[in-house]
Structure formats: C-alpha cells, structure tokens
C-alpha cells in the first residue's frame, strides 16, 4: 500500500492534475466561475496527491531517481532525484498550496469580471508545478528551466492586478532581481560544469574532490547571491517587500510561505550536500548574512504600515532564522561536529516547515482583511475582530506562532535553533564561540522585536475601533476562505503539540543530507514526548507546555468566575476617555506604536521625522488648520547599494554611448588594436 503511494506514478498524477487544472482554466476562461472552480479544484487534487506521494516517500524512506537523456541534447535531461530532503520540501509545498488553493476559491471571486480568471488559474497551477519540480530536479540545466518557469509564473502573478501601476512596478523589480539571481546561478552551474563535466548533481558531487578550492569558493559565492535573491536575504531582498504584497493574497501566501524556501532548499542542497566538504568561512558568511536578515528584517517590518509589506519583511526575518540554522550546520560540519550540524539543520528544516505554515496563514488572513476593507494600509483598519472574528482569531494564531510564543509551532523551531546556537557557544573554540554568542543575542533580539511587531500588527488591525468607514463596514470572509485559514491554524497548533515527533523525523532527514550516521543524534525524544538536547542540557515537553498553557488560564478563569463572588455583574460601557470623545484618531497607530523602537534603532533605520503645520492664518500663525507628522524610514539599501550601482550603470551606458561608441573611427580601431594586443598577449601567456 505504502509503496504504491510512494511510486512515481503519484508524482506524475499530481503534475497531470495541476496541468489539467491550468489548461482547463484557460479553456474555460469565458466563464469566470467555471475557470476558478476548475483550476482551484484541480490544484487541490494535485496538492493532495503530491502530499500523499511525498509523505509516503518520507514514510518508506526510499529515494526515487528518474532520468531521461536524449542523444541530441546530452546536457538537457529530465532528471529527478527525490530523496528525503526533497520529499520534505514537497510536503511543505503541497501543504501550503492545498490550503491556499482552498482559500483561493473564495478569494478569486473579487477578480470576477475585472481580470481573466483562466489566465490566473493557468499561471497558478504552472507556478505550483514549477515549484514541485524545482525541489526535485537533480540536473543543473533542467533545474534552471523549471526555476525560470517558476520565476516567470510568479512574475505574472505579481503583476496580475495590473490596473494598479504599483503592482506593475513591483513586478518589474521582481523580474529584474530574480534574473540577476538566475544569472549568478547560471554562472555557478557553468563553473561546476567546466570543472566536473556535468550538470548532474550526483556527478558533480562525486567529482567534488577534484575541484580546486577557489572554484568551489566562487561557486559558493555565486550560488549564495543567486539563491539569496530568491530567498530574500538582506541586502538582496528589495524585490520581496514590493512583490509579495502585489500578488493576490493566496499567491503571496505561497510566495512567502514556500517559494522563497526553494532558495533555502538549493542552499542546503548545494552547500551541505553537493559541495561538501565546505570550508569554515562559508558557514560564517551565511551566519553573518542570516543575522543581518533577521535583525534588519524585523526592524523594517516594525516600520511598515502596509500589512502585506509587514508580513513580507517578516519573511526576510524568518529566512534569516532559517539561515542561522543552515549557517550553523555549515560551521559545525566544517569543524567536524556532525551531531551539532544535524541539530542545526534539523532546526532550519523545522523552521522552514513552520514558517511556511504560519506565514501563509498570516498572508491568507491579511488577504481576508484586505478583501473586506479594500486597503492594505493598517492605519485604516481597527476593530476588525468584532466584524470578522474568525479571521481575527486565525491572525492571532499566526501572530503567536510567528512571534515564537509557546505553545505554537514557531516556538519549538526557534527553541531548536537556540539550542543549536547554545551548543555552538558551549562546544566551539575561541573565535567561533564569540561568533555564536553574537548570533544568539541577535536571535533573541529578533524574537523580542517580532513579538512587539505582531502586537502592533494584530492590535492595530483587529483591536480598538475602526479607523475608517471601510473598516466599519468590513465583513467576514467566505466559508471556503475561512476553511483554508482554519486548516493552517489547526496545523500551527498541531505541529506545535506534536513537535517532538516531527523533530525526530526531521532529524533523520538532516542526517541523510549530511551523511551523518545515527551516532550523530543530539535530539532525543524521551517518554512523555520530552525533547532532550545533548543528553539533557535542555529539555522541553511540547504536549505538557500546550496543556498547561491552555489549562491553567482556564482554571484561573473557572476559579475567578465561579469560585469567588459569583454574583458579580459585568456591564459594558464606553471606554474611559477622561471626558473627551474618543475618536479613532486617538487610538495608537501603527506608526505611533513602532515609533519608540524606530528611534532606538535610528542608527540602523535612519528615520526621518517631519512635522508640518498648515495655518488658517498664514501671517500670524496662531490657528493651525492641520498638523501632520510623518515618520518615514529611509531605504538604506536603495540609497547606498542599489542606487550607486544603478547610477553607475547609467554612467557606464552614457560613457559607452558618448565615450566608447563616439563615432570616431580612430577610437574603434584603437579598440581593435587594444583587443588584438591583449589577445596576442593572452596567446603568449598560455
């Protein structure tokens, strides 16, 4: 039974279902309803099939390899290699796509009559198929093709709501950045091809001992930049907060939840698997980038008042946390501590799964809010929990999970990441130890700031009173949308409670990736589902923690409600306002909430605070008509990194136009002469 489910037929069936969904949507494009139902339904079936396939692959523990080579194009082969790691990512992707497709059925309705639904359905299915193939491909060329399909499909989805010029701009930025990334990836693969003679990952891996160190280092840097763009590491992130908000929310959820993880997947695949053994500095570089991503990501999130941009910045933060695990795993494996490497990688994988779940949940609930209020500006929300209680509850669950608060899933993966770092401090020698101390502090700071940020996000969006007329008339999401969100919310709880079991499974995967044996088992699950790290250095019991956190407040409630003063009366009245009518403008705003944190970190964020007053009487300036305070944060990266590069390019092209291509024949001949001399010289050197 299990082997039947784990057979490649299932995978092909899943692909076919997505294909039918996509093509059928195009054929049915005349009817918005049919196209939507058709594409979403088949995406659902496809996701379930892929999920069943991947889970049974994991359960049976087998590896599935498929390869078709053609004689005419020896480099181009359809090569799949589904090992445990790939199967794990398949699980992650298909879980998220399942619930997003379910949600999409309801969410897409708002596009009826405005956009071509068939086109959306086609791109959506294509996007999912491409993602599934990206994490299973084992050949550089084939990988690049599906990678490019994934990027293009997501680009079209980002630019789908094309009536808003912002979205088109965001899409363009995404397109440019993702192709810069692809260029770097291409270079990396070509370098590997030159030195190993193959694009096939297994061949490359086998040939690794013959590859000189500087080539490996170059491949590492190229791949780090290339996949870093997709993963959204700082400073390559600038497309992410622009593109993720622009896409329809269920697509944002998939992009933020799983698409950026394909970058992580390839980093794990290349750095920890194919390119092994790796030098120590790779891990240090990844750790430094991870720290920058997580601290700055959460700080930028705090400054946002666009709900989806806020979530997008949190994706950067969480990518940073995942990379903390990956980087630590690299450091540990370079130091020969395979057990610790397994622990760190397990943490990274677990956080990948968790982030996929709660981030897509948050994007979906943000989507419902946007759907109900028609704006992404959090300053125009408020009080939505009374109008859309289910969405509010799901957003709360997501917020608790992403803030790494117990007993939800986010806590346990962050806990595991912390444990890896603690062990790093305890077991490494001088310099690396200090590195880990810094990294641990950064992670603690990040999680503290994340809590603050989600108090802000949830509080400003759902609590207090509506701040705009649209928010007053908000309505609850439709049943399918709620179902999609509910599933993910339940998963947040379930994965949290069952974290010890899941961590044990993930540890097996990590051991497989790092080719570490069973002796490298640092995480043990003792009786009563108690997770234990390094023989009891740290222990935690997820079920007990969950039970206590639910039961104790309930007991407190029961005692205070029924044990003491049972005759108490609770009345509702107006908020104590000191006598003045409370308007929505007196509530704390998103900007106001984050102001103090922004000012504390002003050295990093470079905020600019502008007061402007308009007067009724311009001459004497006694009676102000309006006052406004603008707190904005400079985009440091655009200003100091991208803008100089951009200006440099413009200068270069000017120079090419006016300096090099100046119409002077002499100059052209001079180029010939110089090139000739150089070429002759090179011939001489070789």
């Amino acid at each position, binding site marked *: 039974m299990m082997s039947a489910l784990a057979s490649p037929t299932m995978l092909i069936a899943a692909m076919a279902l997505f294909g039918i969904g996509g093509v059928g949507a195009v054929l049915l494009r005349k009817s918005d309803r049919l196209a939507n139902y058709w594409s979403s339904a088949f995406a659902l079936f496809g996701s379930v099939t892929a999920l069943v396939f991947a889970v049974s692959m994991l359960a049976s523990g087998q590896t599935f390899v498929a390869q078709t080579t053609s004689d005419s194009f020896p480099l181009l082969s359809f090569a799949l290699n589904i090992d445990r790691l790939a199967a794990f990512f398949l699980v992650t992707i298909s879980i998220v796509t399942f619930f997003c497709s379910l949600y999409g059925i309801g969410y897409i309705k708002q596009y009826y009559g405005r956009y071509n639904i068939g086109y959306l359905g086609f791109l959506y299915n294509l996007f999912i198929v491409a993602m599934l193939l990206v994490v299973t491909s084992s050949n550089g060329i084939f990988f690049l093709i599906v990678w490019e399909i994934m990027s293009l499909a997501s680009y079209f989805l980002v630019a789908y709501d094309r009536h808003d010029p912002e979205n088109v701009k965001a899409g363009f930025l995404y397109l440019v950045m993702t192709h810069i990334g692809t260029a770097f990836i291409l270079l990396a693969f070509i370098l590997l091809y030159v030195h190993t003679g193959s694009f096939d990952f297994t061949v490359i891996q086998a040939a690794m001992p013959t590859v000189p160190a500087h080539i490996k280092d170059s491949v590492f840097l190229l791949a780090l930049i290339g996949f870093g763009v997709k993963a959204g590491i700082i400073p390559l992130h600038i497309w992410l907060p622009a593109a993720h908000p622009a896409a329809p929310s269920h697509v944002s959820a998939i992009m933020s939840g799983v698409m950026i993880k394909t970058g992580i997947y390839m980093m794990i695949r290349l750095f920890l698997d194919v390119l092994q053994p790796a030098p120590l500095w790779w891990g240090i570089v990844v750790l430094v980038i991870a720290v920058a991503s997580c601290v700055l990501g959460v700080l930028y999130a705090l400054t946002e008042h666009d709900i989806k941009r806020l979530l997008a910045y949190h994706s950067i933060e969480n990518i940073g946390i995942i990379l903390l695990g990956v980087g630590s795993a690299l450091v540990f494996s370079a130091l020969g501590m395979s057990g610790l490497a397994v622990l760190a990688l397990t943490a990274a994988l677990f956080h990948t799964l968790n982030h996929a779940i709660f981030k897509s949940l948050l994007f979906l609930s943000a989507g419902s809010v946007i759907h109900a209020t028609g704006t992404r500006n959090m300053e125009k929300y408020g009080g939505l929990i009374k109008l859309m209680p289910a969405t509010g509850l799901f957003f709360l669950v997501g917020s608790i999970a992403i803030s790494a608060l117990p007993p939800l899933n986010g806590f346990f993966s962050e806990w595991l990441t912390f444990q890896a770092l603690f062990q790093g401090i305890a077991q490494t020698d001088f310099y690396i130890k200090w590195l880990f101390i810094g990294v641990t502090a950064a992670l603690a700071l990040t999680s*503290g700031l994340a809590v603050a940020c989600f108090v802000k996000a949830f509080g400003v969006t759902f609590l207090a009173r509506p701040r705009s007329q649209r928010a007053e008339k908000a309505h609850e999401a439709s049943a399918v949308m709620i179902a999609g969100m509910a599933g993910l919310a339940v998963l947040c709880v379930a994965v949290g409670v069952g974290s010890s079991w899941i961590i044990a499974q993930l540890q097996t995967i990590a051991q497989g990736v790092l080719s570490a044996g069973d002796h490298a088992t640092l995480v043990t699950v003792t009786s009563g589902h108690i997770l234990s790290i390094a023989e009891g250095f740290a222990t935690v019991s997820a079920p007990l923690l969950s039970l206590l956190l639910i039961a104790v407040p309930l007991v407190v409630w029961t005692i205070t409600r029924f044990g003491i003063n049972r005759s*108490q009366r609770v009345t509702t009245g107006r908020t104590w306002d000191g006598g003045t009518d409370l308007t929505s403008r007196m509530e704390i705003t998103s900007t106001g909430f984050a102001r103090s944190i922004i000012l504390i970190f002003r050295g990093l964020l470079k905020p600019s605070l502008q007061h402007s007053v308009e007067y009724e009487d311009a001459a004497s300036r006694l009676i102000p008509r309006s006052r406004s305070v603008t707190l904005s944060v400079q985009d440091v990266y655009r200003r100091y990194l991208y803008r100089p590069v951009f200006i440099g390019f413009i200068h270069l092209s000017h120079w090419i136009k006016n300096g090099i291509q100046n119409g002077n024949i002499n100059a052209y001949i001079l180029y010939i002469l110089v090139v000739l001399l150089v070429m002759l010289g090179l011939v001489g050197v070789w």
Partner: protein
Amino acid sequence: MSYLLWIIQIMFVPLVAPLGVGLINSLKARIQKRRGASLLQPYRNLWKLFYKDEVISRDASFIFRFAPFIAMGVTIIVGACLPIFTSTLSTPMSDLLAVVYTLALGTFFMALAGMDSGSAFGGSGSSREMTISAIVEASFISSILTVAFLSGTTNIAVMSAGLSPGSGNFLIPIVLAFAAFCIVLLAETSRYPFDNPDTHLELTMIHESMLLEFSGKRLALMEWAAANRLLIFSILAVNLFFPIGIAHDQAVLSVLLGISSTLLKVAIVYIVLAVLESTIAKYRFFRLPDLLLVAFVLNVVAIGLVL
C-alpha cells in the same frame, strides 16, 4: 512528601507575591517618613477588587476579556517552574527558553489588551511596554545562559544543583550576569528607573497605563500577575545566581531552610528595590536602551568568561 512540596511550589508565588508588594510599599513609606499601609494591604486590595462589579469597554473584544486569565495563568505556570526552595522539583517546563517565552506570552496578551479598548493611554502603554520587553529579551536570555553554561543545563529548576557554590572561578561571570539580570528585572517588572509603579500621571506610565481600563476581578488578576512577575524575577535573581541555602534533597529540614533562605534573600531584593525607588529618578524613556545595552555587554562578557 513530594505532593506537599509540589503544592508549596505551585502556591508559593501567587501567595507570597502580594506580600512582597506590600513590603516594598511599606518600606518606601518608611523612607518618606510615613507609616504607610500595612504589609497585607495588597491582599486586601485584591480581595476587594474580586468583590467589585466590572465595567468593560464596549470597544473591547475577547482579547481584553481573556488577557487577565492568561497573564495570571502564565505567572502561575512559570512560578511553579522556578527553583523556589529546592533544586529537586524539575519539570520539562522549566527550560530557560520556555520560561522566557511563556512570560513573553503574558506580555503579548497584556499589551494587546492595552490596545483593545482603543484608549490613547492603553495604546501608548502597550507601545512602551513592548519596546522595553523587546530589547530586554536578549539580555534576559543571555544572563541566565551564563549560569546555564556553568551548571551544564538550561533547566532553571535544577540549575543550582550543578553549581558548586564554593568555587571562586565562577564568581566574576556570575556577578556580571547578576548585575545584568538586575537591570533586566527592573525593566521586566516595570520598576524604577524604567517605570514608576505608583504614578497617577498617564503620560509617565508604562505598565499601569495598560491597566487603566481594567476593573474588578480582571484588574485584581492583572495586579496579582504583576506582583507574581516581580516575585518570579526576584526568585530567579537570588536562586539562580546565589543558590545558597537551597535544598538539594527533599528532607523536611533542608526544605524549611530553603524556604526561609529564599524568603530572606527575596526580602533583601525588595528592600534594595524600595531604597532604589526612593533615591533615584525615573529615566527618560530614550535613555533606557543605554541601560539595556549595559546589561547586554555585561552578559556577553560574562558568557565569554564562563567558557
């Protein structure tokens, strides 16, 4: 015996905490040359509040209604995980990070409840509270981490068993980490110089301004939870860093010694707090990060010295 110990363990924090607040208030009154309220006044305040009706804002949601129970529940859970008088009562809950984040869960809901009624005070209180608790968390974790590395476990309940009290090598890191933890304690429990627990001016409040909307039982729970929090941090401060007198077995005599030594040490902390609050001024809000940075640097040095 073990059951009895567990009952003491669970009840200790909620039962003793109001007394601590009474002690501080009474001491402060003495320093101001007043006689002040009796030590038991906090119990009376709570008891009275439990018997009052409640008015809840019509703008508030279920978050506001449930936050007090969560805040209180969290302090009870964490209170039961502490090394209060013995290092033999260990639970898997007593993990360093579990404790820190469970406390953070309480803060999370408290801050949300502050925003929930839509009052300007509550919102700004939440903002300030979250600002401080966000940047204090790194110091909180790392100061306890110093002791964790010394004793070889992150389980705070049994941490003191791994510490050998006599060895002098550990003294410097422990003192540094303790100094850092004291700053964390002041920040996390909203005491001077971070916050003024007695203020009636909304603009200077941090913690209290989140509570302005609460009344009756819910107010009682919130104030009780704040008292518990203060006691939790005090116990952590004295029993993690200076576990003198703590029982390492479950014999009656050593347990009694443990309880009394803890009470004594916590009383010293409270006396110091009272003196501190009577002698220094509250800091300007934006000077607080400097203080937290000091705590952080102390921690880093301490961890560096441990290994």
